């Protein structure tokens, strides 16, 4: 049986003497689109920071595709793509140059070709020769996704990917994530506040509260378990309220 895409066991993290993650445990299987929900300060971004190897946890285990995020950093970073909440790239470089740079860092054999193909896949070839300093938020977001997938990672981490996007941008992003999941088989781990997007997109959800996972199940099972709630928002509030 293959290792899960993401495996978190007894994860703890303390920031400036304040506990952020408290014995966090969950698993995400390959091919899932996992919606990671939680209030501000619940520890969602800290979890992503640990899984993307940017932060060492105080204790506990975080694995991606069976590789430990602390002791096996190189293997983890070869398998992940990461889109932070606010996308910034080198403004003095073009989109193509930015993508080539990140492709090289990821050890892609033909960076120029990979960059061009990724932009074409996202329908953003027209951005290739343009300097990033001239980009709108939506264009930056598309380029951000392109840098996250230019090396075709197995697991894609998206931290609040819809922040700052207009409704059309949100819809485009949703379609892109679905395509990445269906065409390329990428597992997607998404931190978000937009419950409507989670309901339309995610196959599984997890709810984080004060550093602990208080709920995790498939969307289908969630809808079955909470038949009286009209929306995911109602379910989210009920789960949060039920937590001591």
């Amino acid at each position, binding site marked *: 049986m293959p290792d899960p895409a993401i495996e978190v066991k007894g994860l703890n993290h303390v920031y400036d003497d304040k506990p952020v993650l408290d014995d966090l445990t969950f698993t995400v299987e390959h091919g899932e689109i996992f919606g990671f929900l939680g209030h501000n300060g619940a520890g969602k971004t800290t979890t992503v920071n640990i899984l993307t190897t940017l932060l060492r946890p105080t204790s506990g285990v975080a694995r991606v595709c069976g590789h430990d995020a602390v002791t096996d950093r190189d293997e983890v*970073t070869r398998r992940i793509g*990461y889109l*932070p909440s606010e996308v*910034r790239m080198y403004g003095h470089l073009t989109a193509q140059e930015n993508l080539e740079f990140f492709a090289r860092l990821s050890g892609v054999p033909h960076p120029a070709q990979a960059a061009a193909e990724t932009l074409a896949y996202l329908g953003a070839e027209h951005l290739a020769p343009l300097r990033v300093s001239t980009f709108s938020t939506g264009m930056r977001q598309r380029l951000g996704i392109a840098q996250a997938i230019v090396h075709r990672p197995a697991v894609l981490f998206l931290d609040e990917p819809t922040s700052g996007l207009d409704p059309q941008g949100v819809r485009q992003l949703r379609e892109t994530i679905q395509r990445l999941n269906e065409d390329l088989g990428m597992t997607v781990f998404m931190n978000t506040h937009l419950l409507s997007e989670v309901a339309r997109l995610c196959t599984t959800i997890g709810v984080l509260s004060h550093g602990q996972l208080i709920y995790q199940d498939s969307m289908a099972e969630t809808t079955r378990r909470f038949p009286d709630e009209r929306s995911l928002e109602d379910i989210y509030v009920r789960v949060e309220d039920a937590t001591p």
Partner: protein
Amino acid sequence: MIVTLTHHQLRSIRRQRTFVMFLGSFVLITTMAALLGYSSSRTIVRVYDEATKLLAETGQPAPPNPFDVTPSLALLSNMTIYVPFIGAILAVVLGHSTVIDDKASGIGRLIFSRPLSRRTYLASKVLAVALALAVVMVVSWAISTVAVLLINGGISPGDVGRLVTYFALSWAYLFVFVLLGIVTVLVTRQRATALLTALGVWVAITFVLPQVTSGIRPVASLNPLTAPAPAVQSFFQMTSHLRPLSLSEEYKSASATILRTGAAESLGQTLTHTAPVLVAAVALGALCLGLIHRHDYSRSGSDE
């Protein structure tokens, strides 16, 4: 990987205003030093010619032309003041901007979510900025050589070598301040704090330490004089032992010997003056390595 990053960094540096300003400033100060040297030598020669004529009219013998006994590179002596003053402050800004952009913009998060070691990242940054600094020094050396050639009507191979040595020393001295600019970014969380801290250290090295370690020469930081008279007050006798820490003084002493504008020194003495600069560069390089490993790039982009 290091080639990719160094190439990328060099391209970024080339497009930065900081670097253009750095290069432009060095072209300007080197030219200024040469012009000032030329102007003062012309004035002195004119006065000498007038005096010689007057002395000849009164039948008195003329003394030798002062430029026959003045070192041929003396016309560039102002460079030894410009480098610690203007060059060092620009080097701090260059080092600062080399690492702050990735940190403040949040690109650091994207970079370190790739299979890239922090040591490689730092090495490529430092290598790129060292090469950029070398380009500036080569341009300054070329201007200086041409200036000496034009003003003195020729330049000996020895003087060419001395200029090369002087600019190599200046490169090492400025590299210390580049590293200082990097260290302060890695130590602090805020862009402004990092820059102010680095500038505080620059002030201490350029103004405070020369005063403290040679208290009997209150203008020591301004004039590249030769060895001071012995300190008489016990405080300054004590602090004079800290002179090796006064990098700008050590730099000026070594420069004066190399350009032959100061008192003649043995090779050993010159190396003694050079050693603190090299030790500081190695120490700051090691500090950078230690700091990059514990720097929290997960907060990259959230500190501004």
